[in-house]
């Protein structure tokens, strides 16, 4: 290590359920260069100081969605957050807020996965088509209706940002709602009515208090807050239509 090597202090919230009663903080002094991400800082600790430090990661390029954590209290992908932007101050990293901690920086995502599965995140064809008939035709206008909402990488930073999810873990939440909206808006899909039940349910959009922090932290500009709010309007319309139609607006 050269004398000019810069050292940053990384404070990590550690928790091992087999040996710790509660989470505690440990500080590591990590030599770094300007191109090093927070993820690389964590890797340095694991490789050189303590192999038991536990975190999820894979692609290193902000597309696999594995490496979200609270960095100085803000939900971020650690692979695209750089140590240089915090130096010379100490940087703190913790597991994503609002999720149960499994170990160190790893949180329990099973609840999120169940939500994602519950919204029927697949094309329910508006009209069937064989492979021999080729692709569905989708005009640029139709394409633009939904494309933004396909960009979600399931990193769940928006859940770590959502105060309502913090209060009610059953709330379907921003990412799952954005995905629901993505399929509803796709011209190939005819499943919107089936999905509407979930939108208006107790776990649905009316939990949202329109803080908008979810969209602010989204690393892929999906704007899940917008998806939630569009569905609030749709759900309200649906509610009033129930009084007009004997079958209800969504049935």
């Amino acid at each position: 290590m050269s004398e000019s090597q810069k050292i940053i202090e990384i404070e990590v919230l550690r928790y091992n359920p087999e040996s710790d009663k509660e989470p505690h903080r440990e500080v590591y002094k990590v030599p770094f260069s300007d191109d090093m991400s927070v993820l690389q800082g964590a890797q340095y600790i694991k490789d050189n100081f303590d192999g038991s430090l536990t975190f999820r990661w894979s692609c290193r390029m902000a597309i696999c969605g594995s490496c979200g954590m609270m960095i100085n209290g803000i939900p971020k992908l650690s692979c695209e957050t750089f140590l240089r932007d915090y130096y010379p101050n100490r940087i703190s990293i913790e597991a994503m807020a609002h999720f149960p901690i499994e170990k160190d920086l790893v949180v329990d995502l099973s609840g999120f996965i169940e939500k994602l599965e519950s919204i029927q995140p697949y094309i329910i064809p508006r009209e069937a088509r064989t492979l021999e008939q080729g692709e569905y035709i989708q005009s640029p206008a139709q394409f633009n209706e939904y494309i933004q909402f396909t960009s979600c990488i399931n990193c769940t930073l928006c859940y770590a940002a959502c105060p309502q999810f913090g209060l009610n873990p059953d709330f379907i939440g921003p990412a799952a709602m954005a995905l629901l909206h993505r399929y509803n808006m796709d011209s190939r899909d005819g499943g919107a009515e089936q999905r509407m039940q979930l939108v208006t349910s107790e776990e649905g959009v009316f939990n949202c208090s329109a803080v908008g922090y979810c969209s602010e932290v989204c690393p892929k500009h999906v704007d899940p807050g917008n998806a939630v709010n569009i569905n609030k309007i749709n759900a309200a319309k649906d509610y009033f239509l129930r009084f007009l139609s004997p079958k209800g607006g969504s049935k």
Partner: protein
Amino acid sequence: MEIFKADVVIVGGGGAGLRAAIAVAECDPKLKIALVSKVYPMRSHTVAAEGGAAGVKKPTDSFEYHFHDTVGGGDWLCEQDVVEYFVEQAPLELTQLEHWGCPWSRTEDGHVNVRAFGGMKIERTWFAADKSGFHILHTLFQTSIKYPSIKRFDEHFCVDILEEDGRCQGAVVIEMGTGEFTMIEAKSVIIATGGAGRVFRESTLGGIVTGDGMALAYRHGVALRDMEFVQYHPTCMPVTGLLFTEACRGEGGYLVNKDGYRYLQDYGLGPLQDKPKNKYMELGPRDRLSQAFFFEQQKGRTIEHPTLGSVVHLDLRHLGEAYLRERLPLIYEMAETFMGLDPAKDPIPVRPGVHYTMGGIKTDGKCAASLKGLYAIGECSSVGIHGANRLGSNSLTELLVFGKVAGVEAAKNAKSAAPGNSAALLKQAQAVEQRVMALKTKTGGSERISVIRKEMTQSMEDGCGIYRMEKTMQATCDKLAELRERFKNISIDDKSSVWNTDWLTAIELDYQLDVAQAMAHSAINRKESRGAHQRLDGYEQRDDVNFLKHSEAYYVAGAAPRIALGDVKITKSQPAARVYGAAGEKADQERKASHV
């Protein structure tokens, strides 16, 4: 130990594994499928593929063209009957994905659009901006949720496959969150664990790309085929190795050296073209472009960057911000975030990095390995379509075409195979558990995993890089043998059960060392230059007399692998000079004339 009884177990939940799972489910909804993945499926490395997936689309294109591009691109080491099937199925599978919701980029009239890619005669790469793999993976994952017969084992790590009575009949997995073992019994086992490029130092790959399934099949006596062929992608971010897609060049990007000179014209890819021209200049195949970089560096014509090392420039500036944001949004953001550059204003420093494992678990054209009941698909497999050099955008299509084939074949096998001997399987699984637990509980070791890994990746880069020589390859073989010994003396810091990634990383390193040995020994044995395997020590030419053959590496416990040579299936394309640019066009015309 928990026991789960399935009909088909699939190890690996990326594009290939998910496509196979859907195929099994559609064959027969009564078949129970266990889909094992060490990450949530949508984290699999398919997610990072950028450029697109090849399949004939335009009226000016043909299966014949796609076939010849692929076989020539693979330097005639492809299984030609398998390539014929592949190119015919490609458009159907890509259309299937469209029906499932994949947001392929479109033309103004609403049809799926295609872009140019390296080594392809006609534009035939279906793309979803520059996040094609991301969209393919998420579409498949989300679609898989429709099928109740697919039971996912997310964040479960496979430590072995089970072989009984000459058949593969299951897998042993660890639930990462608890450290508990499960035996999954199944009549068919599909391995879909992806590549092994992380055995090299600078790569485009995610941390999970550790060759797990390759090592497992190999240890059970299945050959790893053509492992010496490792693809260097020519345009990667220096140091991290992150990928700048070939689509950058398909859309019109230039590669220039320190003099601002488009140097590819000096390497049989010219003459210079203003606009992207298929199979010319920047649209040459990846092996040739990475090799050209090597020689530019030798000639002192690369740019010497103070922190990044030797680089050339990927110049996209003339394409303009609006076009770049539409076609290459991820590339734009990566350049901004990771390099502090604006690609509309600044050229991007790049150099080659390890990207793809052409070889893998040897299978027949129906994805069946030599061990009955075992199938392999995707990057971990060698079904035979890539030969000595893969063309960009063939591998995403491969996941779909052969994922489906393997699913159908595994379903057939599961329905016809006799029930297994559960007691014997359990006994084996318990022995596996003991062996794997011993690695964690042992004490007194002094080698750090990270140190062995670092030495391995450096040695692979030194000995098995873009150009290879006997002496350095031998040094790598020796180094790997040494690391194999030292691995016995590793120490694992973490002794806990919950989320013990220290332990799992050690198991991965064990896999990596086996796969690295298969690569290095296959490489030193191939005394010729072909595709991505290029030598500078007297074997600079392709040698069809002795090496128009597949390499097959067989595992030998405690020693170097045994390397054998296997036949190559040739149907309609006899080996010829592999030429691009103007020379390629001339050769094409001559071939056509001779057929008239």
